[in-house]
């Protein structure tokens, strides 16, 4: 089944509006991009979109929460599930930047790590 999607390239301020044609979930054509980077992005975004997730998590005995991030981008569809895991997480001191806060979050194989230390 053919499907057309219009997306904006995020790689530079041109913000090219690209029309992507998909067949059975596969990209068959991209138009509207000015350069090759747009095409690469269109493929990624229309087949396996990923995002970094950043948030804060409470730390026992600390007034201020600890900021965290996924070590790598995770599938976009898993963002709500990842946020849910984090909303149920509380850390214990000491937390060091780089420590895993949630291992293999939502089965992605990717850890959520602390981005600052709470000692």
């Amino acid at each position, binding site marked *: 089944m053919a499907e057309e999607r219009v997306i904006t390239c995020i790689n*530079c301020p*041109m913000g090219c509006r690209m029309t992507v044609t998909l067949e059975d979930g596969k990209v068959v054509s991209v138009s509207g991009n000015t350069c090759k980077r747009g095409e690469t992005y269109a493929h990624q975004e229309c087949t396996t979109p990923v995002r970094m997730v*950043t948030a804060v998590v409470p730390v026992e005995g600390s007034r201020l929460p600890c900021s965290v991030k996924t070590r790598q981008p995770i599938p*976009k569809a898993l963002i709500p599930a990842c946020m849910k895991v984090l909303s149920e997480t509380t850390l214990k001191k000491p937390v060091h930047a780089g420590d895993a806060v949630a291992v293999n979050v939502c089965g992605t194989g990717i850890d959520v790590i602390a981005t600052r230390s709470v000692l």
Partner: protein
Amino acid sequence: MRTKKELVIIGGGPAGLAAAIAAWEDGIRDMVVLEREHNPGGILRQCIHNGFGLHRFGEELTGPEYAQRDIDKALELGIPIACDTTVLSLSEDRVVSCVSQKEGYQEIEAGAVILAMGCRERPRGALGTPGTRCAGVYTAGTAQKFVNLEGFMPGKRVVILGSGDIGLIMARRMTLQGAKVLACVELMPFSSGLNRNIVQCLQDYNIPLYLSHTVTRIDGRERLTGVAVSEVGPDRKPIPGTEQYFECDTLLLSVGLIPENELSRTAHVHLSPVTSGAEVDDSLQTSIPGIFACGNVLHVHDLVDYVSEESFKAGHAAAAFVRGNLKVGRTVKVRDGKGVRGTVPQSIRLDAEDGVRLMFRPDAVYKNATVRVLCGEREIAKRRQMIFTPGEMAVIDLKKEIVKGLDADLTVEVG
């Protein structure tokens, strides 16, 4: 108490830290960084999203991670950072008055001063939106501080006025924390935010962006209850009959940043009406000898990487000043030409020893355009770029050989 220091740096954000590191590397030891918050790091501490440091470190870091690299470096070198210390005033002869709980009131006679106080957000008062003065109206940065540093949510149903990056980032942040963001409303026909943020912060969460719209009324007695939004015409005035109403408990303002220059004023530093920051030469020295400025207090940057780069330069120059080695001879002026606003630096020393990077913002969107630098009538540099937008600072570099040959004032233009 009155003491002396060779170098005083005001502000412990990325600008102040980078300047301190550079001066230390040049052998200055008798220095201090004064920071009014409890921790160094500046505004990056609350910018928990990633996207910082790609230019400088070749990887994308979150704000706290970027800041920590400089903090670690400063601590490792042994640079003294006095936190919880607010600078109250600065005089023309470089006396810094500050106050802290620990030390009380102090005056420091400084051999050189680096201004690195950052910027603040334009508050509601600067906008003149009619309506009641109820709770629930915050700048996007204040909301960012609540959510990311203190861990609490300022509201549940949110409208955002202005589509600057901080507003866009907060649209996503509040959504992920369970709030309903109803709309992002932008006065101009284009957003000043990055495309990446429009896609990943608004479109990903189906938050509508209303371009050429503005908030025309703010309702609520104690707490905000709703806002009226209208479309605006080319004159940016609301078009009657286009009003729509959003019931909400929170309005976030993301309508621009202004350099924080109260202290520069007390020292009678000459400020540019265009950038709202000091006017500086290529060594980042202001109109007052021995007072330097860098980072967002000088002009609002969108990339912290450039803040650090500029601030290293200021640190080196201040160190040279302390040693009596900073060359200041004749200068040529750098003026904004067609299509260009707020070029920094505003002057270049004829005996500058390095190349100079000119930074500016275009006054509108220009596609397939060229930026040119003229020395008198002579073209000395040009660069073509696919797009220039006011939301993104543009740069053009003048090579060392070119700087050596300057003989007239410069004009920067885009078209």
